[in-house]
């Protein structure tokens, strides 16, 4: 239908407040997404209290604690990178984003060892070992894999988000007076952190 010569029209519109608002709304949807899983968890925890209690003892609280510390620290470095950017210290801001990504990597390595230890012991969905356990424990480990797995997926998405920001900093799209994308990436990262703060007690600490 566009028969006449098309002239490109660009909307030059900048609204940092609006961008942050969009990000917050997206974070609400993420909270509700995990909220659905928390409902499932609470219902099954309520109906199978004894078995959840026994199954939870299989998890290694120390690794969980280390991962909690890693994520909390990474949230701090993400927040610091915004302040560094605001003060015009681009190199330092970039460095802090890289540190955040390194922490994310460390978290995933821990997670890898944790999961492979479970799988090594024959505890994975559909395994004979697991199916011989009582129903409550099957549900517990099912939820363990789904919820920590979905969280790990969010960690990866967060890293990709930060890699894009690094590229944008390199291209000069993100700088001292235009850093809303970095802020949004950090907001997302805080959400990843926040969800872990709930997962950690639910699976590792409540006995």
């Amino acid at each position, binding site marked *: 239908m566009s028969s006449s010569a098309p002239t*490109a*029209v660009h909307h030059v519109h900048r609204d940092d407040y609006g961008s942050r608002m969009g990000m917050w709304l*997206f974070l609400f949807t993420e909270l*509700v997404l*995990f909220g659905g899983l928390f409902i499932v968890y609470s219902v099954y925890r309520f109906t199978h209290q004894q078995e959840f209690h026994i199954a939870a003892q299989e998890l290694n609280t120390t690794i969980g604690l280390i991962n909690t510390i890693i994520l909390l620290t990474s949230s701090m470095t993400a927040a610091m990178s915004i302040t560094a950017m605001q003060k015009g210290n681009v190199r330092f801001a970039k460095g802090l984003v890289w540190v955040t990504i390194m922490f994310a990597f460390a978290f995933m390595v821990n997670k890898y060892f944790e999961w492979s230890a479970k799988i090594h012991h024959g505890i994975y969905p559909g395994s004979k070992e697991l199916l011989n356990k009582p129903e409550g424990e099957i*549900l517990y480990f099912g939820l363990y894999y*789904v919820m920590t797995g979905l969280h790990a997926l969010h960690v990866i998405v967060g890293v990709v988000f930060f890699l894009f920001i690094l590229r944008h900093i390199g291209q000069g799209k993100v700088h001292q007076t235009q850093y809303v994308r970095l802020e949004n990436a950090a907001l997302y990262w805080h959400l990843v952190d926040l969800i872990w703060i709930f997962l950690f007690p639910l699976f590792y600490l409540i006995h």
Partner: protein
Amino acid sequence: MAHVAMPVDKIEPSYLEVTTNTHKGLLGWILSVDHKRIGLLYLYTMLAFFFVAVGFGFMIRLELISPGKTFIDAQTYNQFFTLHGIIMIFLFIIPGLPAVFGNFFLPIMIGAKDVIFPRVNLLSWYLFITGGLVAVAGWLLPGGSADTGWMFYVPYSVRTTTNVLPALTAAFLLGFSSILTGINFITTIHRMRAPGMSWFRLPLFIWSLYATAWVQVLATPIIGITLALVIIERTLGVGIFDPVLGGDPVLYQHLFWIYSHPAVYIMILPAMGIVSEIIPVFARRTIFGYKFIAFSSIAIAFFGSLVWAHHMFTAGMSDTAMFVFSFITFIVSIPSAIKVFNWVSTLYKGSIQADPPLLYVLSFIFQFSIGGFTGLMLGALSVNIHLQDTSFVVAHFHYVMFGGTGFGIFAAMHYWFPKMFGRMYNMKVATWAWAIVTFGYNLLYFPMFIMGYLGMPRRYYDYLPEFQPYHFASTIGSWILILGLIIMFTNLFVGMRRGAKTPKNPWGGETLEWTTQTPPIVENFHEVPTVTTGPYDYSEYEVAKKEGT
């Protein structure tokens, strides 16, 4: 609405001729971030799916014209009603008004150049079309299309050998698309209003989109995670809902309806917004009870999110829970009734002009009222036990979803058609099409109330001979309805191509979209409008009418 800066009537190439990128032809459409083009992309894809789903509906009705096998076997019949439901709900009614008319008119009606995140807007269309294609793949792949009904109830959806995975994935992607649209609309309404466009000067369609967008944002993730869990359960064998592994199928039903009941309001609220737009224009009267209509949208969105378990009264729940859910269900009827009363009061003593958009709106009010009242019957615990899973329920939700939202979409198409395409359809044909569609529609669905009340179960392939007269009438109704739809869409299509050119404001509307060029230019307005009064300001007409001039 009076404006300080009246746009000059200079003619510039419209959005149909100029796009936001440098491509021509198809690429100029599918890569354009112009909200109007995206709205039309949604319209065309959505209508394509609608026609397919009408086809499946036609075949379901044809099979049921007589007891026993008529022309398809029971398994095919199960797949057809599943496809009919999935397409109509996820690909037509949910995106119907917000994604098509919301996209096209939301920025124009608040005096903005575009939505706040134009690229996210295009992304959500791509998610929509991908979801649609994945669904289509599920029907064509070996194994046969899903036969679970659109609700995907566990454990059957985990066990059946048909292609449930593509259907689930499609619904997941479509949900994501819906969420992005919702985020875009909320932020746009908050941040992009023209100078002077305060919250209580917003057109009521915008209020209804605002309420809808919140439901989209806050309820859709629940269906996302629930369907993802079924996908995980089916592919990896993780025990979550399957009772063999200790899961609880009723928990699935709760999670499903926590989204899918509010989704009903995603479907109906924008249609109510359309009605609130059209009535003042064709009655030449300021809308009665603006704030009540605006807040009743919010109230419906709020209470509608707390009633989901009324779909499950026979599934096993405590008496207290049943009582509470039944009570809140009754509460939802209050804001709905407030709207109906306000619409009727607006029409009262108005200078009514019965053009096709208003005729569809009148059908809406009539049919939505029937749908609403039968909803109250179903929400009553004692009656529900008798009517659960009968065709009474089918009739009820078709009266709300089709008789309400579907007719709302038809009304919107006829109302905004001249603005979107700059041409007018044939009024006489449109009026005839309306009469045929309304008659066929009621003949199709009303008998279902009666036979449902007499005990005809829903989704059954076969039935007792005593139900034959009702089924027969219903099938005849489906033919008349489809005839009407063919006339209506042919008329619109011909009008789009060859209709007479229309002026800027053929209906005498007072909202911002009627002040701009027809069809609108890419940036909607030549200069940013300044708003000084509320919408639907027909005080001049009303004064003139009182004085008898």
